[in-house]
């Protein structure tokens, strides 16, 4: 049976704050371990691959690092309709997420009806390491709670 909800953590877990998407996605999965209709995917690149990762799910939650000039640790929430790209949702080798979704629909793929994005403002993206900046690490529990809340709101449970 197709799992209903997918959580996609984007970014490179070895590149300091770029790894925050993976950290959050794993934490959400840990909070909801008893759920059987939940999948977690860690993804490095966006564009077409991000769209493909959502195929067959009814709902998708994407979490990624971000660089918008806001203070590190700021959590942004985006709706796909007003979508501004986060750090890894665009692929410089193919296209942006919105274009990828249009392509997917042209190809007849079943894409989720409900999609939400979270972007966590990072500080360090050019240093290899598995440690998040303090402000970014501090933002993780809040983002996890928001995403768990969203799943609950969508499914009317949790």
């Amino acid at each position, binding site marked *: 049976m197709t799992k209903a909800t997918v959580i996609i953590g984007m970014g*490179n877990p070895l590149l300091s704050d770029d790894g925050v998407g993976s950290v959050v996605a794993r934490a959400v999965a840990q909070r909801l371990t008893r759920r059987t209709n939940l999948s977690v995917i*860690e993804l*490095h690149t966006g*564009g077409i691959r991000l769209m493909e990762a959502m195929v067959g799910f009814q709902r998708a939650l994407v979490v990624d690092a971000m*660089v918008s*000039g806001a203070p590190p640790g700021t959590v942004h929430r985006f709706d796909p309709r007003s979508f501004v790209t986060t750090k890894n949702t*665009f692929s410089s080798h*193919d296209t942006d997420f919105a*274009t990828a979704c249009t392509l997917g629909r042209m190809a007849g793929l079943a894409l989720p009806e409900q999609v939400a994005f979270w972007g966590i403002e990072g500080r360090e*993206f050019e240093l290899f390491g598995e440690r998040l900046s303090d402000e970014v690490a501090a933002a993780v529990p809040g983002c996890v709670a928001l995403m768990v809340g969203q799943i609950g709101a969508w499914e009317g449970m949790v």
Partner: protein
Amino acid sequence: MARIIIDPITRLEGHGRIDIFLDEQGKVENSYFQIPELRGFEQFCMGRMAEEMPVITNRICGVCPEAHHLAATKALDALFGAEPTAVAKKLREILYMAFFVTDHTTHFYALGGPDFIVGPDAPASERNILGVVRKVGVEIAGDIIACRKRNQGIIAFLGGKSVHPVAGVPGGWSRVITAEERVQIEDTARKNIDFARFSLSLFEKLVMNNPLYRELITSDLYLHRTYSMGTVDGATQANFYDGMIRVVDPEGGEFALYPPAEYREHIAERVEAWSYLKYPYLKKVGWRGFTDGIDSGVYCATPLSRLNVSEGLATPLAQAEYERLYESFGCRKVTAHRYAPIHHRLATHWARLIELLYASERMLELAQDREITSPETRTIPERALFVGEGIGSVEAPRGTLTHHYKTDERGVLTMVNMIVGTTNNYAPISMSIKRAAEKLITCGAPDEAILNRVEMAFRLYDPCLSCATHFLPGKMPLTVSIRDSQGALLREMGRNR
């Protein structure tokens, strides 16, 4: 000319950047191509066990984890003195062909193709993969997605994980495949061949049969006579997974043929004060600046370069396409099987499609070998054969990829060095941008169509900035700035905008 100042903001924003400086007459004085450098990779690896490298390095880049995974695994084969079994080599190469098919397909339809299929002067909003679908027909959307899906499926079961493969181990491959999986690979390869042939026919129909595009591709706008590099097998024919590194000079003479482990005797790196990049060049020719010709050590490592160094291709359909490419450019034969190199850089798009066909046919060859379902996928390393240093190399889609590790006697890393595919091409990319800009921008601030033609010089290399690219919301990872003789900004545009 205005003095060049490298704005520290470049580093903070972290996206690739091209600066073009104009003189007082509005002609191009100079141009600079920049991408940020990531820090601390070597320190990150030091003190770890060498066998972690195939899963660490496949995280360097989300676009070609398969290339890093295999280069790292091959470096470990050498480091542990464990020659992989024949079955292991074949399984690795199958995974790699599936990856090449996916990568080359995506580049052609999403990035390189739109300039020709939709048109170089089309508005940026239409010059993308959706424009290609509108032009070619809606079925192509499904075909592209299906091609990616079937090959990603092979990569997932063969690599042991869906995105970042984990099956590479020193001396072999940790995944054994079943008879059913072999059939699935064979079926995938056949579909890939059909799709590659269709893509080549599309290129011929929409690009080469269009006089305007043919003229653009064969003009001297995107022409550089550099050395070419690629990996060749025992028959001196292109192979993406394994072989010797061959370099041919701009006229087509063999300049060097060496095992990847000897790369340091052949490749040196030039440091320029204005850039974080290191520019590799042929040590035995020497650095003469950003210039082409037989006296300049600048070399190119791209799909076109790989064909330039190869004595034809080992599979029949790709061989026929290879001949068509060189005949079409009027190249004479320099050996019984090889033509004089093509230096028109836009032909790289054509070469990439020929490689797509070769990878598909090679995948079929490997899939038809019944031995691949054998469980003999591993040579267990022996203490007595431990070397403590290893160099591994593959042809990444964007150029020759080399990993080099040293360890102490326990196998703990003490040195890590890499030359990634795109790095080989830093000097050629810079030169191509400059040449196109010089030829096209002759009287001040250019319009978008002109700038797109400058960008095409960059895009044909498909440089991999993704592992080194960060950008602000809404911004593309490449900014092109045009400045006047006083350094004032005349125009700035983002990639695909």
